[in-house]
């Protein structure tokens, strides 16, 4: 049984006009029918640009938001509409690491207090026991346990991110949702944090949902990768397979857009796919395939009929009427294995 299963997840944020009489004016379709699974101990990478809905997914999975429709099943238990009280014990098991190490730590509390807080809220251990646990974790993430009484501003960005990770691990969670955990860090520090996350996963048997926009980072950390566009998954596949043989035109464009550190990088520009225009609005997504307005392979059917996720073999699914390099797809199976 997968640790996390998400089925047909939908989140619409209603827009209203007027103060006294709030009238509905449509909604932002942030997440519009998402399905995936993460096996115990595995890492699913979630990639997408602004407006793809990936951060909303992070908040839905950790139940900081309640879905508009669909199902979230954690360790066999549906948590889709669970009450705050029912969720509380689960909050030990599902934790979140945030993007910005500067705004995710309370500047007025000591590092020790910050890392201890989840234990305090869950009423785990005595004060002395919590202190010991915090010191243990500071060491695990590569910080000096003696810095328990320091304040966030006394640490660098990379160190603050380690503090955020320590806080996420202090309750021995099973599922860690990392929402852009290294984007705000210098390149040479990113590698340190990625190594740390990898070690911790091995040591504590963690399961990761790793959300990022940096394709090279996602490829390195993930077993499987899901590509999101405007609230939907357009492609999902084992990591190396996705990068070697993308099936969806958006994935192809995304991969082609990433600048590579190569001597002949300029040569590569000739074959680069430069997408036209900006991502369309999530308030009124395009008809049919949401990507068709920017897709160079689009035909009439693309604007009329929404493509379903189809299995292309080996656990590689994609939703496209004109999949790239297509061998005829296998029988329809809407959910990724």
């Amino acid at each position, binding site marked *: 049984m997968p640790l996390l299963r998400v089925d047909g997840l939908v989140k619409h944020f209603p827009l209203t006009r007027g103060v006294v009489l709030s009238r509905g004016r449509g909604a932002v379709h942030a997440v519009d029918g998402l399905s995936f699974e993460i096996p115990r101990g595995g890492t699913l990478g979630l990639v997408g*640009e*602004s407006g793809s809905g990936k951060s909303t997914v992070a908040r839905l999975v950790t139940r900081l938001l309640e879905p508009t429709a669909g199902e979230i099943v954690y360790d066999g238990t549906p948590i889709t509409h669970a009450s705050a009280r029912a969720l509380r014990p689960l909050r030990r098991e599902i934790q979140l690491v945030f993007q910005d190490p500067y705004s995710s730590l309370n500047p007025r509390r000591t590092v020790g207090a910050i890392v201890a807080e989840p234990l305090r809220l869950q009423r785990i251990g005595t004060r002395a026991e919590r202190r010991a646990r915090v010191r243990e974790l500071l060491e695990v993430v590569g910080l000096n346990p003696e810095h328990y009484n320091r304040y966030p501003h006394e640490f*660098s*960005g*990379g*160190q603050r991110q380690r503090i955020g990770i320590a806080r996420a691990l202090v309750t021995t969670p099973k599922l860690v949702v990392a929402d852009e955990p290294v984007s705000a860090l*210098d*390149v*040479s*520090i*990113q*590698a*340190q944090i*990625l*190594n740390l996350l*990898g070690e911790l996963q091995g040591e504590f048997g963690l399961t990761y949902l790793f959300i990022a*926009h940096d*394709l*090279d*980072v996602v*490829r*390195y*950390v993930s077993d499987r990768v899901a590509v999101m566009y405007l609230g939907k998954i357009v492609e999902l596949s084992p*990591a190396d397979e996705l990068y070697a043989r993308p099936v969806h035109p958006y994935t192809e*464009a*995304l991969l*082609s*857009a*990433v*600048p*590579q*550190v*190569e*001597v002949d*990088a*300029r040569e*590569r*520009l000739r074959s*680069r796919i*430069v*997408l036209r225009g*900006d*991502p369309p609005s999530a308030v009124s997504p395009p008809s049919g395939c949401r990507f068709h307005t920017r897709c160079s392979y689009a035909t009439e059917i693309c604007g009329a009929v929404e493509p379903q996720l189809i299995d292309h073999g080996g656990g590689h699914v994609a939703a496209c009427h004109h999949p790239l390099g297509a061998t005829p797809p296998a029988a329809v199976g809407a959910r990724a294995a």
Partner: protein
Amino acid sequence: MALLEIRDLRVSFETRDGTVRAVDGVTLSVDRGRTLGIVGESGSGKSVTALTVMGLTRLPNARIEGSVLLEGVDLLTLPPDRLRAVRGKRVAMIFQDPLSSLHPLYKIGWQIVEAIQEHERVSEKAARARAGEALAEVGIPNADERLSSYPHELSGGMRQRVMIAMALVLDPEILIADEPTTALDVTVQAQILDLIRGLQAEHGTAVVLITHDLGVVAETADDVAVMYAGRVAELGPLARVLEGPEHPYTWGLLRSLPSSTASRSEPLHPIDGAPPSLISVPSGCAFHPRCPYALPVCPHAQPRLIETTPRHGVACHLPVATRRLIGAGIGASEARV
């Protein structure tokens, strides 16, 4: 003669916490029509160097030494009125976050017209016509109508195009772009870099592109300068620096990229430690505390930038032969997965 020559530039700021040595002896040059990429992480001094060229660091607590020669004229000693004639007209700059660089309360047409009229005696009507042409040239659809839009009505990518239009409308000789695509999605980044390259080819503008992203440098720069702690570590033609890097910091940057590892099961190779605070820069070679190849001399003597091959300068105490041997193994000509 190079179009722009920065010679032994030093910029420091007096603060309550001490003296911030932001730029500590930087010598760089930019040739007509070519692109210089300046690569560095936080605290490398790359942004302050650019701001100083534009005369934007003339603050009461700033101490500026050295020279910045634009076709032989030292910008650092120009009186304010003459500097204003240069800034915007001969040397233009665009910044990372276009939302904070554009005035939120004025329509973009007005802002571009203001830039034109600041430097040229033209009627508003004529200036407005040029503004419309500039917007069209940067690929903004319905350019004339767009002149009446406010910045917040445009997407990030569009706003950055507006910034580029504003910077290029007066046909400057040099465009300084400080992290122009860092805040943008990767597909939008590809569009913007494509635009800058195209405009450069069309107008013959020299470009100084400041970034932390080695990939961006690889595909846009002719020459590259790697900066660390306010100094230039390595400088040379792009192909030389990427194929045969000769500074341990450059090696560290290249090796820490996730794309440089063959497989997921291999840990990444970060640089230990973190970039130093510019208030307490390490003695001798600023990189020595993090350098795996540090020699006994390194903490005691600051290495000077010395050209080992024509135009390829490196500031390092390691013998040239040793550096070449190590660098060849790390260089980007190696095929990577």
